[in-house]
């Protein structure tokens, strides 16, 4: 845990919420492209080069497909390229499809970053204040799942080595699976009784219960939260004044180039690139320290 991911989960949640909402609801190619760039840069710090490459290929194909679907269904636009079944296939629809594709891809990429950065314990922390009981149950479930998986493997191996369902016949395999599951049911019951005992032994059920999390809200978190809020507000103001409006139909409208809209683009750019800068800054710092040693 370091860099961007080490920020307080609630700040991270605010960040992702803001970036995702702006990306999804501001139909403006500049916003979408900035967002895509930011998400891909952040993703590159979180995944291996190989995975990144396969992701980018997937995103490219997805954008092409979305463009094709949009061309099929949307025929508005002043610049027809050709006609299909008597309806125009227009250049505007092509760009609109590209815009939608970039938007969807950047939302996917942001969500991927989010799932890498906001791990289950952070997720619990974010909602822990609202519903601590539910989060305790979630935590227990997350504890139980790997336990159950391992036990399943053990039981099924044991049954196999007893010669019960190593036959190639499917019916036997199925039967063996049913036995294994029934054995696992009674195992889970026993297991949960023991877990229940351990919980009671440690005073579960006393009132009032408190809620603890390892995450702190430090000065860094405060600063980042302020930045996120400030920049989001700039984008929202600019958008509510119509400065970020952009039209594809009937013809491409072009960007508004007032001070306010340029400020909004820059704000959003800083917002989306911020995680990447925090990450690389730490990398550079680290390399600097190494070279000094």
């Amino acid at each position, binding site marked *: 845990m370091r860099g961007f991911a080490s920020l307080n989960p609630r700040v991270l949640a605010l960040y992702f919420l803001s970036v995702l909402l702006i990306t999804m609801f501001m139909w403006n190619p500049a916003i979408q492209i900035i967002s895509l760039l930011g998400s891909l840069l952040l993703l590159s710090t979180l995944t291996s080069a190989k995975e990144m490459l396969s992701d980018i290929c997937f995103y490219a194909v997805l954008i092409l497909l979305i463009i094709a679907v949009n061309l099929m269904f949307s025929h508005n636009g002043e610049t027809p390229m050709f006609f299909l079944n008597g309806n125009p296939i227009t250049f505007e629809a092509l760009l609109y499809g590209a815009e939608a594709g970039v938007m969807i891809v950047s939302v996917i990429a942001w969500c991927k970053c989010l799932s890498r950065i906001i791990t289950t314990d952070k997720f619990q922390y974010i909602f822990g204040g609202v519903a601590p009981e539910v989060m305790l149950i979630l935590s227990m479930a997350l504890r139980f799942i790997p336990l159950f998986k391992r036990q399943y493997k053990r039981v099924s191996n044991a049954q196999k080595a007893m*010669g019960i369902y190593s036959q190639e016949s499917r019916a036997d395999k199925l039967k063996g699976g049913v036995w294994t599951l029934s054995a696992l049911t009674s195992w889970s019951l026993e297991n949960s009784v023991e877990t229940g005992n351990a919980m009671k032994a440690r*005073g579960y059920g006393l009132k009032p219960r408190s809620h603890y999390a390892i995450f702190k809200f430090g000065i860094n978190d405060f600063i980042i939260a302020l930045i996120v809020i400030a920049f989001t507000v700039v984008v929202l103001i600019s958008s509510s004044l119509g400065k970020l409006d952009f039209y594809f139909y009937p013809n491409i409208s072009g960007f508004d180039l007032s001070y306010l809209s340029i400020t909004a683009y820059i704000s959003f750019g800083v917002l989306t690139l911020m995680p990447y800068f925090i990450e690389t800054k730490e990398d550079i710092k680290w390399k600097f320290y190494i070279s000094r040693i």
Partner: protein
Amino acid sequence: MEILHIQDLSFSYPKSKSKALTHVSMTINEGDFVVICGESGSGKTTLLKLIKKELAPIGNKEGRILYNGTEIDKLEQRVSATDIGFVLQNPESQIVTDKVWHELAFGLENLGVPADIIRRRTAETASYFGIDDQYRQSTDSLSGGQKQLLNLASVMVMQPRILILDEPTSQLDPIASDEFIATLKKLNDELGITIILTEHRLESVFPITNKVAVMEKGRVISFDSPRKVGNQLKHNKISLGFPCAVRMFQGLDASGECPLTIKEGRDYLASSFSQSKGKSVAVTDTSFDETALEAKDLWFRYEKRSADILRGVSISLHKGEIYTTLGSTGVGKTTLLNVLSGINRAYKGGVKVFGKKLSQYKNNSLYKDNLALLPQNPAIVFTQDTVREDYAKLLKALGLANQEIDERIADISDKLGLSDLLDCHPSDLSGGEQQKCAIGKTLLSSPKILLLDEPTKSIDAYAKQELIGLLKGLKASGMAVLIVSHDIEFAAQISDKCALFFDGELIAQDEPHRFFSGNNYYTTAAYRISRGFFENAVLTDEIITLCKENYDD
């Protein structure tokens, strides 16, 4: 100062005629380190659970348990939760949450302690127990020993005054369990916390306790300092689990102060049998004719990019031979068994069973009449509600007729002496009984090769002796037995051949006397005691025999 007083306590479970506890009286002072020993079913766990109000079983209770002068039943819930800490047997099922820090905080959250105090207490507890580097890890990624240590830490974070542990090390390997016991000693020494513990393996516990309670059929038959208990219980079968030095002392019918540790055992030998040097145990090599299982140069890994677990293992197992593979947890002993039994396939090298390659055994012919594997936890081999049904189901799957099934079951249960257990639910059986029934199940398919994974885990000393008798009987009838274990004493008693599994290889395959007397650290307590006095004496009984011979001379 008296902290716990048990006064004429009797207890019986509902619908049970016999009493689980009969007139138990005990006084435990603050700072005591008490170990309670006894066979499975002697009432140890019942006694411990009655002390912890939240876990007390339902039944008919007479007599009183007083904590600090207050009766346990009338103790305020909050006081009982904090002051009396309880660690259970199974490290896995006690862990409630998915993260180490959350597990540590769980008890304090229940008490409603404010978050900043929880932060401080979990932090200091984690660093005291040396688990601070695992603080943010998920609980599932810990090893068995680490899990049990976490369980202990998450009880200790609540600052209890009495710590009760029910066979906490039974699922751990010897190194992890020694570490765990050492942590308990540290808690007792440094914090003065009162500890009450039940335990099968007494070798390392006995010397550090100040009181030993021995239970038999619900009664406390002895409650005294370990030296005195060693002196008192000379011909009781419970002493099978006592440390080697105590058993040697008892076996020689000696008087005086009972030695407890290896060092004291050596001192005792030096003072009483110093002139006996040169005596040795004759080592005889048994030769075997028929090879049952043979593997050459096995290489195995679980995933393409993971590390090799088996790195050129070669082994040959003969009919009528017991072969034990020793080694610490996590080095791949279980994997070795899985590969040998065909559950996993080696990517290089092959396994032959009676001269035929594993792949040539089609359908389940390998597991029918040829080879059987008993997994580490015997409970998982049962899938039905009673042992008998379970046996019948397996025999049916193996294609036997109804009449044959009954005959086979009767045959096996006579042989292993488990007729009384046939109609029980498998999970109601004790560890030793489960083990016996599981072995019975593996024998149903009349295998000629038996593979056993940690058969002595979670069974008591008496059940262990029974297991040894059982396996020796099977060996006499020509069974080839391969055991993987980390139980050194057990291996020394039973094996024809031992080997050390290390770094993916089998090292130092040898006859057990030579194997253990060739090792300096990885050897039996008996050999550590007798080294320099006698040669090749790796069992307590061998020391006793040699000492007696020495007297006769």
